[in-house]
């Protein structure tokens, strides 16, 4: 990681921000001392297990639990009738037609099952083996139903109804800008293609896991691997008890990638512990996790893009159809992201987007790193290269002629207020890629590919997102941060430590960050939507600044200087330019305490609050800001076997300001590999609702020997909405890699593959060798 001095817009001198310091939790993880969800046991605890549906679509005629209940060692067997509030209905918007939707959720299946992984019954028993055996003794009588497994089929008015409503279409959005007919008539070339992307598994190391108990003040306490501790409210609603009677604690999370944004084990645990009065632990097996937890949405994307002779984009028309699987979950929001991102980082005068998300009897789909952005990025970036080829322009040249710049408006009318450095990222990525390598054999072809992407950070502005953080300074000058963040491995907690350290001039080791506890830390919202640094970073920055402000008058008095001239550094306060005139920070704190000065602050940060956009035209603001960047890739394709080797991979993203460059680089490298799997090997294959890839033997994530060296180039425009000008990088970092690989493969073999992943077999077919 090297910073290009030319990219330093100004010469700030930070002590911690932007410095590559090992994370405060790194050694504990390396030595295996970090306690993840499953590492926690309690005396007398029971083991919980879930009985899942035997069919993707069926009526439940009866459930007989008596056989299981009779087993020695079984403490509880629960079905829908035992759940106080088994059904929740979420409604959004006025109409079902455009924008609005309605989602029905059941904790345990009742009447009808909609997919193979659906939970039908719960068991708690003294050992895992007994619980497993008890599941086998629950007799469920089903009447199989035909089901529907293809979203396009499911859109038919007379298709099988997955849910209990009158249409499988959950919702639809539209973007309208200019007149696409006019735009295409003025285009010299028009490229039309239909792209398909598959179901994707999150493949975190740590499967869903948690333990629940009732504490000595009757609080249902759940220690769970989650991205959202705020689900304590949903759990309380299911049990029909006040929200403040449920406490959720999130330990360090062994990977989330979006799948731990929805409720996983927490409601099941709460029900079992509430029923038995005993602690209950539940950890899903890998197979259970792959079959029953959310997946990334497959999309069918029809794109038509037109450009003038000199490569200026004139019109783009897109139809996006996503497979929501069996339940609504976050599908409407994922679709909205795709809809807004559908044009990519390009300025296009005429745009028409129609998007749909549709219920099927497949595994449900929901949040997955990228949240609807990577799907459309694959399509629009493939389109750009096809246009370039038809116009004999270089991939970089056509993009340069169309990139959005700061101050430009998206097709939704939203003006980009913060830094937009896409062009710079593309140029740097290609530069670093260098000259193509020589093929290692006559049957090998080398290709290079470029793709740029944009993705929002921060939640949708009509959700009125907020976060809060507590910063307090102790009498010895050490600092306590309390913030309800979930740390899912991206360094979420550590970044808050960096921010507090910078403002208060206290070394990282003397900052303690308490995270993820709804009873003890201020609610900070979800670790999703690439929002944590933006939201909680800003809240922590605000709180730390307030604490410093409250110390300043006393410090100024003690140093006989004016407050504006004081510097906080190395646990000392001194007058700028005269470090010798320093007093220990602890002395200032003690003096303030004696004077009754408040030594802590709880600050709230509010994202911009906007109202709903017009879902018929897409006009309005949906996101606070976007992160822009590019990937450049070189591949070698074996034209006899179709196998692709990635020889070089460069990721160049504008991170605004890297709070800790090591963490940011980690996100960019991880994002690149996440996207590489999407490009080449990863696909959850379902056959009529049945998962054919239920383990890591069939579902192929790249291994360390499949991973090329990832060269990371971080631009720092210092022009983001986060603290110190940071942008979010967690999700955007995986956005443009798959299309970069696809473009490199097309460049190598002279044929374009429209479906991910790019398997050897598809490559040979496109070479007409099969």
């Amino acid at each position, binding site marked *: 990681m090297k910073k290009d001095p030319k990219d330093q817009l100004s010469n700030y001198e930070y002590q911690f921000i932007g410095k590559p310091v090992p994370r405060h939790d790194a050694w504990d993880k390396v030595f295996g001392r970090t306690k993840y969800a499953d590492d926690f046991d309690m005396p007398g605890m029971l083991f919980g297990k879930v009985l899942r549906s035997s069919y993707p679509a069926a009526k439940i005629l009866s459930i007989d639990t008596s056989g299981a209940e009779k087993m020695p060692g079984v403490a509880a067997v629960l079905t829908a009738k035992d759940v106080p509030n088994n059904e929740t209905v979420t409604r959004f918007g006025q109409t079902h037609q455009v924008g609005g939707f309605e989602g029905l959720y059941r904790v345990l299946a009742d009447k009808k099952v909609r997919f193979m992984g659906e939970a039908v019954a719960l068991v708690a028993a003294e050992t895992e*083996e007994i619980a497993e055996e008890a599941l086998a003794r629950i007799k469920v009588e089903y009447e199989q139903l035909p089901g529907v497994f293809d979203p396009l089929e499911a859109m038919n008015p007379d298709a099988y109804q997955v849910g209990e409503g009158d249409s499988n279409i959950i919702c639809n959005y539209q973007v309208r800008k200019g007149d696409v007919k006019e735009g295409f008539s003025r285009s010299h070339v028009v490229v039309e293609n239909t792209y398909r992307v598959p179901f994707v598994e999150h493949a975190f190391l740590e499967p869903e896991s948690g333990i629940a108990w009732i504490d000595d003040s009757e609080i249902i306490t759940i220690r769970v691997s989650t991205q959202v501790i705020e689900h304590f409210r949903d759990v309380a609603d299911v049990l029909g008890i006040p929200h403040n009677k449920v406490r959720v604690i999130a330990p360090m999370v062994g990977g989330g990638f979006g799948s731990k944004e929805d409720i996983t084990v927490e409601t099941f645990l709460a029900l079992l512990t509430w029923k038995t009065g005993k602690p209950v632990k539940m950890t899903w097996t890998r197979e259970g996790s792959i079959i029953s937890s959310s997946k990334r949405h497959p999309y069918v994307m029809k794109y038509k893009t037109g450009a003038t002779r000199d490569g200026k984009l004139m019109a783009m028309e897109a139809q996006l159809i996503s497979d929501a699987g069996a339940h609504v979950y976050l599908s409407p929001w994922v679709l909205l992201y795709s809809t807004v991102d559908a044009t990519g980082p390009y300025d296009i005068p005429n745009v028409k987007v129609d998007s749909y998300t549709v219920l099927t009897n497949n595994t449900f789909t929901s949040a997955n790193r990228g949240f609807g952005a990577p799907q459309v990025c694959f399509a629009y970036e493939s389109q750009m290269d096809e246009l370039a080829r038809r116009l004999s322009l270089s991939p970089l040249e056509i993009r340069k002629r169309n990139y959005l710049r700061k101050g430009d408006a998206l097709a939704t009318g939203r003006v980009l207020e913060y830094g937009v450095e896409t062009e710079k990222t593309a140029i740097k990525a290609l530069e670093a890629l260098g000259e193509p390598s020589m093929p290692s054999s006559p049957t090998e072809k080398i290709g290079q590919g470029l793709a740029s992407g944009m993705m929002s950070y921060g939640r949708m502005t009509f959700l009125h997102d907020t976060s809060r953080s507590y910063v307090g300074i102790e009498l010895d000058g050490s600092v306590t941060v309390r913030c309800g963040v979930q740390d899912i491995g991206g360094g979420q907690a550590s970044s808050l430590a960096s921010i507090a350290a910078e403002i208060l001039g206290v070394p990282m080791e003397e900052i303690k960050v308490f995270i993820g506890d709804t009873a003890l830390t201020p609610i900070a919202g979800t670790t999703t939507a690439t929002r944590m640094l933006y939201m909680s970073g800003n809240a922590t920055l605000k709180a730390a600044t307030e604490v410093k402000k409250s110390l300043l008058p006393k410090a100024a008095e003690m140093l006989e200087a004016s407050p504006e001239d004081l510097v906080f550094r190395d646990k000392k306060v001194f007058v700028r330019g005269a470090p010798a005139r320093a007093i220990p920070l602890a002395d200032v704190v003690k003096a303030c305490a004696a004077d009754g000065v408040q030594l802590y602050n709880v600050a709230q940060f509010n994202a911009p609050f906007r109202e709903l956009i017009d879902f018929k035209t897409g006009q309005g603001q949906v996101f606070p800001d976007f992160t822009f960047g590019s990937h450049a890739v070189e591949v070698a394709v074996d034209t006899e076997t179709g196998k692709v080797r990635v020889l070089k991979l460069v990721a160049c993203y504008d991170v605004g300001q890297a709070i800790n460059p090591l963490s940011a680089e980690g996100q960019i490298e991880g994002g690149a590999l996440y996207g590489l799997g999407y490009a080449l090997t990863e696909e959850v294959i379902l056959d009529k609702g049945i998962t054919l890839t239920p383990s890591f033997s069939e579902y192929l994530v790249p291994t360390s020997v499949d991973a090329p060296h990832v060269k990371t180039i971080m631009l720092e425009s210092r022009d983001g909405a986060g603290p110190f000008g940071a942008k979010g990088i967690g999700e955007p970092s995986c956005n443009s890699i798959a299309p970069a690989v696809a473009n490199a493969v097309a460049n190598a073999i002279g044929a374009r593959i429209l479906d991910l992943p790019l398997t*050897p077999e598809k490559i040979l077919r496109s070479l007409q060798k*099969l």
Partner: protein
Amino acid sequence: MIEAEYVAPSNLGELFKSIEGRAERVKFVAGCTNVLPDLRAQNPAPMLLVDLTGIEELRRIEENNGVISIGSLATMTELAASEIIRTHGPILASAARALGNPLTRNRATIGGNIADASPAADTAPPLLALEATIHTEGASHAKREIPVEEFFIGPNQTVLNQGELITRITFPIPKDPSASSHIKFGLRNAMAISVVSVAVVLEMQGNLCHRARIALGSVAPKPIRAYLTEKELEGRKITEEVLESCAEVVKKEISPITDIRASAQYREHVTGVLLKRALWQAAREGENSTNGNI
């Protein structure tokens, strides 16, 4: 629920004593890399687990009068590192290096790999091409020597009887071990079940192929020898044209299936491609593919 009795004999005598009269229920356990996932996936009847890992005499790799002998407990890591195997059966070392990942290779044994008899078992094609013999010992010390061609019957099926133990595997040192080649083709570079794998051992006279032993994995219900293709090649010079005809003939000998990893059509095509490459490499006394994976 898994119900099992467990014994851990420290020599063969103890082993056979402990299973006497109970052969029907015996499940041998070596590296456990197949046994454990299998047991978790099935709901097995109560059994007698016999842990082999304490039996030192089953570990040896040695050379005696032109014959290589490998104890059934030899791990992939040991095979890949063994000077004897690298010199006299480099295609077996290559297959061992290409199996699974380092953790798996440290545990996975050659006996377990062939007893499990997956059509994709990575050590099977090299053993077939090396014309290996499987030495077994059953109840009441009945010993058998089974040519590896006769050992596999179908997917996860062998000629082994209940309670019959593989003690060692032998093969005669080929005339020219360097005129051999092994290629594993999987969908990623590690932790990949072979889509196709090929092992060949040739005896060359100049550029004339005097004798050929060709074996294939993952293209039939069991690992197979490609006898017709061997005939096609023997007595001929290795030219592009001959390789082409071998690639055609081999398609008649295989019966690949379509599964989630690849279609039958793809496997058929790639078998031809890999066969040509393997023959070419071996014929040029090529060093064996550097790590087995391509």
